[in-house]
């Protein structure tokens, strides 16, 4: 296999790992617990920026062409841990604002606005993370190991991503199928029943918001270290939609399903579209990619709302499907 092919495959594997970890974070919030986090991409970005700044040296040392808040030059794995902490902390702050007193779809609106605010801040306050140009020269932990070929370093990073994905996956299984996981699904299905059991639904939501935020941050940190650059253009709010599609296609609440969904939607569609024999106009291909993502969401919500690999607990799924209608008024208006 040529070096180029190896590198391409490595890239795809890293992207799959990153997206799977991120999609699991969203699944915990949206799939398992029913929290509609439309600012999701913001937490991925927070992780990426944090990892970048923790691993970069001081701004003045890197040639002075980029400006950012701090540069600590910390060794692996501290930037990743720091990213998760910041992602979780930011989630806690935003969760406290939005989760306590707003209805689910309204939370979504407010978080959408917050996501846009964050982009505007990042672009406007240049000293924060170099404005719209973003950060570059972000160190890759595998490449700091000397005496290895580029190829080996690359596969080392792939190994790191795969290992982290597996660890997160095991933790996800532990969490989702524990008694605590039942509480989370309870929050999604029947908040009143959870409250009646003496558990606070709001607290549970906040907890998954924080855990999911930390996972999003981890995925962002890995991505930033892999590509070596991170800028506001990478986390515009429509990107969140891709993760939602991944969870819906894979199967809300299903850990293996969401992993497949993330691989297919976040990585697969993009790669597959490039190979489509419909001429070579890249603008059309990109449009097609988004249109396919949108159509896939609609098709799955209509034909297979439980996703490719449905959540194990069918009892809940039936309720999801026949559950309360969005607007009874529209539903029964025609009857």
């Amino acid at each position: 296999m040529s070096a180029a092919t190896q590198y391409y495959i490595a890239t795809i594997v890293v992207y799959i790992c990153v997206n799977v970890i991120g999609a699991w974070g969203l699944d915990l919030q949206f799939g398992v617990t029913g929290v509609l986090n439309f600012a999701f991409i913001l937490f991925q970005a927070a992780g990426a920026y944090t990892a970048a700044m923790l691993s970069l040296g001081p701004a003045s040392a890197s040639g002075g062409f980029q400006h950012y808040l701090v540069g600590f030059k910390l060794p692996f794995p501290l930037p990743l841990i720091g990213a998760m902490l910041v992602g979780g902390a930011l989630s806690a702050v935003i969760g406290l604002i939005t989760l306590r007193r707003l209805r689910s779809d309204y939370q979504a609106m407010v978080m959408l606005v917050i996501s846009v605010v964050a982009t505007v801040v990042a672009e406007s306050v240049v000293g924060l993370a170099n404005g719209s140009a973003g950060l570059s020269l972000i160190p890759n932990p595998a490449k700091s190991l000397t005496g290895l070929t580029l190829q080996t370093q690359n596969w080392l990073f792939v190994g790191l991503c795969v290992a982290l994905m597996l660890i997160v996956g095991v933790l996800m299984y532990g969490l989702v199928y524990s008694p605590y996981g039942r509480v989370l699904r309870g929050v999604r299905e029947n908040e009143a029943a959870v409250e009646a059991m003496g558990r606070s639904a709001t607290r549970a939501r906040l907890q998954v918001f924080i855990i999911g935020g930390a996972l999003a941050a981890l995925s962002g940190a890995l991505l930033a270290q892999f590509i070596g650059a991170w800028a506001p253009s990478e986390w515009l709010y429509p990107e969140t939609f891709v993760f939602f599609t991944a969870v819906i296609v894979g199967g809300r609440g299903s850990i293996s399903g969401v992993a497949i969904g993330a691989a297919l939607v976040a990585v697969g569609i993009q790669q597959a579209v490039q190979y489509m024999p419909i001429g070579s106009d890249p603008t059309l291909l990109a449009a097609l990619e988004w249109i396919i993502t949108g159509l896939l969401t609609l098709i799955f919500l209509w034909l297979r709302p439980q996703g490719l690999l449905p959540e194990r607990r069918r009892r809940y799924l039936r309720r999801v499907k026949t559950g309360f209608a969005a607007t009874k008024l529209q539903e029964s208006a025609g009857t």
Partner: protein
Amino acid sequence: MAVFISAVGFGVVTAAILAISAVGFTLQFSVTNVFNLAFGSVMTLSGFVAYWLNHAGLNIWVAMAAAAVSGGLISLAINEAIYTPFIRHGLNLFGMVIVTISVAVIFDHGLQAAVGPTFFSYTAPAGKAFRFADFVLTRQELIIVGIAVLLTILVQVALQYTRVGKAMRGLAINASLARACGVPTRGVIALAWFVSGVLAGVGGVALFLDISTFTATTGSEFLIVIIAAAVLGGIGSPRGAVLGALVVGIVTEVGAAYWNAELKDVLAFGVLIAVLLVRPQGLFSRLATERAIAR
């Protein structure tokens, strides 16, 4: 002082443009409960209808009226063809949010594929400028502000005093009871979608005239500011949407005049978040509170 007055004046102009769309967004949400993120796409699509007519030689205000009608029809069609079937299918509230964002993505990128990633402008002279100290208004801006004031008052009066307006408000809070009163809910809902689309059409053309150039995604890009205005004012309240638009407009312009042009948006959104912290239901909260959107 002159700077302040002119900044407030400019804020009112910005607010007027945002208010048309914000009222449309909030009205449709209050009646149908669907957070329609494809609202921005309706703005753009009808903006293009006006563009084609305008470049075929039609006066911009006539084109705007055509955009209003087409906006209403597009909005109605989206609801009938996509949203209502999904709701009948049993999709819940936040499932619908995802459906609307899917529709927006499909529309925007479909349109971009059709018209290309380039910029479009109407041919419409700004007209004579009216000057009061630093505060300058062109004839075109004056007409837009006039249209905005007229439309928002019209919506408000219709909701407050007409039979169908009351039915709409009743439907918004208690659909089953509205049916008990004999309200043909399906028709009223269709009307709400149509009116919302009309406002999207007019709001889109007004916005595109104001920013003087637009692309296939401009409507969706500005939707967030429009939602922010609606949320700030208290979702579901047309009065609130106008007030929210005024706050957003004036804060951004005053912020730009006195503080930092680059951060004026941050300032406006900061006000929104501060309001949400204290009063999550927004400024005019009745519907939001009664519908348990915010506690």
